[in-house]
């Protein structure tokens, strides 16, 4: 294959690499705050930590989802941004380490794991075939192994293609994506059921897995566009990642945000309409003082971004769309916060453990991500579809 010439900086420069010390600092500060939070109230701490962990996990899972879908449909446009997604997906390795503290919190988080509850609670007894500790830990191990395997394999294979320029590797990654996506869907769904839905083991929703998935993909696209802006504003890949890629990433963000709304509303609508006590309990817990957080989701997660991101004039302006993405990313955190925290607090509560967990998980997440980005070119330079991506055009007239 011909060597693709771009005038771009494709290796991470010092200006961006310097940020690692800040992220490491944030991570360590976060750990200290977490320690403080843990000794203050361990249950509160684990709830906060699970919130922050599930949020960053959603971004990393969105990364491997994006990579696999692009391979599966043999997309040309996305090649230059795919490396960033591969780097984000590879972060599932650091997420598996950050997962370990949660194993200490199972008894704080999950009522079903208490012997005395199980002894008297008929519903939890009935679910014990699935919700028992050995099986629960085994499942967690399976998720972690699959995630680390997928996340690192796609990055490694793509990096190998940087050197060898072998188009057969693209076909191989396409084939792996078929099985990969099935494993992805199952592990993500069961993670959401195990670690978020089973906090309230009496309640159930058949849409819960896809709800977490929909939010995860929105979080990922928001994060991806922010990363694109960060890379470009520090002088990387300025022509390889251009307005056409912003436009398409923006369209996918917009579409998936509508998909999230569709799933969220469908879940609410069915429960509200049927009005069965064991189901409506979920929304009862999220009324009262939690109501303004609940109302923030339809307005802040859907309505405002829907109007804001609709025009292509916004999607094609990096700073403008990045503001929308930062907002949506915050809303994705609110969404997961809203899923987990009302189980532990009667009132919305954002304390030192929440700040500490966000800093700890986010700091190490970003530290590892920048470290990964440093090791290889910022776009897949050996991909046979790179030229398609570089010359991609949405057909929007220049003003």
């Amino acid at each position, binding site marked *: 294959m011909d060597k693709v010439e771009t005038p771009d900086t494709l290796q991470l420069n010092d200006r961006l690499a310097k940020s690692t010390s800040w992220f490491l600092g944030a991570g360590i500060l976060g750990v200290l705050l977490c320690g403080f939070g843990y000794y203050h109230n361990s249950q509160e701490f684990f709830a906060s930590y699970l919130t922050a962990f599930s949020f960053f996990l959603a971004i990393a899972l969105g990364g491997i989802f994006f990579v696999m879908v692009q391979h599966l449909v043999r997309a040309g446009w996305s090649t230059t941004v795919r490396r960033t997604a591969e780097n984000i997906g590879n972060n599932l390795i650091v997420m598996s380490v950050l997962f370990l503290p949660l194993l200490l919190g199972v008894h704080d988080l999950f009522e079903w794991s208490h012997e005395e509850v199980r002894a008297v609670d008929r519903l939890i007894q009935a679910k014990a075939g699935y919700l028992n500790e050995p099986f629960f830990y085994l499942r967690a191990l399976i998720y972690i192994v699959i995630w680390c395997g997928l996340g690192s394999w796609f990055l490694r294979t793509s990096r190998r293609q940087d050197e060898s320029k072998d188009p057969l590797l693209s076909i191989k990654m396409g084939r792996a994506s078929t099985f990969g996506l099935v494993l992805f869907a199952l592990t993500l769904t069961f993670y959401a059921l195990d670690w978020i839905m089973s906090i309230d083991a009496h309640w159930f929703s058949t849409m819960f897995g896809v709800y977490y998935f929909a939010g995860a993909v929105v979080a990922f696209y928001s994060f991806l566009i922010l990363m694109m802006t960060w890379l470009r504003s520090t002088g990387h890949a300025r022509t390889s990642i251009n307005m056409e890629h912003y436009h398409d990433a923006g369209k996918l963000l917009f579409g998936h945000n509508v998909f999230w709304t569709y799933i969220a509303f469908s879940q609410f609508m069915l429960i509200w309409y049927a009005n069965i006590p064991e189901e409506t309990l979920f929304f009862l817990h999220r009324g009262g003082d939690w109501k303004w957080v609940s109302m923030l989701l339809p307005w802040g997660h859907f309505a405002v971004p829907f109007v804001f991101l609709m025009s292509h004039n916004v999607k094609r302006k990096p700073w403008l769309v990045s503001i929308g993405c930062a907002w949506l990313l915050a809303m994705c955190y609110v969404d997961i916060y809203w899923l987990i925290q009302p189980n532990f607090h009667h009132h919305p509560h954002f304390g030192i453990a929440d700040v500490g967990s966000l800093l700890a998980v986010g700091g190490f997440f970003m530290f590892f991500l920048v470290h990964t980005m440093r090791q290889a070119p910022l776009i897949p330079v050996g991909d046979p579809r790179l030229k398609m991506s570089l010359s991609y055009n949405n*057909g*929007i007239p220049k003003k």
Partner: protein
Amino acid sequence: MSNQSAAASAKAPLFGVIAEFGSPAEVYHAAEKVRDAGYKRWDVYSPFPIHGIESAMGIGDSKLGWIAFFGACAGVFGGFGLQFWVHKFAYPLLIGGKPMVAYPAYIPVTFEPGILFTAFATLLGMLVLNGLPRFYHALFRSENFRKVTDDGFFIGIEAKDPKFSVESARALLESIGGKNIEVLED
């Protein structure tokens, strides 16, 4: 050929002047020059879409988005309004212990006319903006123009253009590399 056409133009109204180009790149660069010459009523004809031709022709954003948007608004407000009016005023009926105006239940029905009216507005708007349906077009008078469905790339400058004259349009098309130039009656 061109003499015949010029003679014909004396007695019948003109459609305009068309010229053939050899490749998408040639027609692309020729389009930029027609645009820069200040013509407004003209078009590029090609067997397949040419990336970036809108910019080369100086075409702005399509108005279709706005037409679709107003269709969507009509559907959304109409759909919601109908349900609201029925449940609040026309035929109030208590259902399942919900409030009379139980707006979450209205959302699916609001959504559907929103989609339906958007689709209608988009389709009809597209037809109107493209001047369709049309059973006759002056371009079909040209034998040579038939290539446009296979391997021919054409530019046609229309007589409706305020700057149009047969001589100047022909001279421009010749100067930018057009071949087989024809003057077509309407």
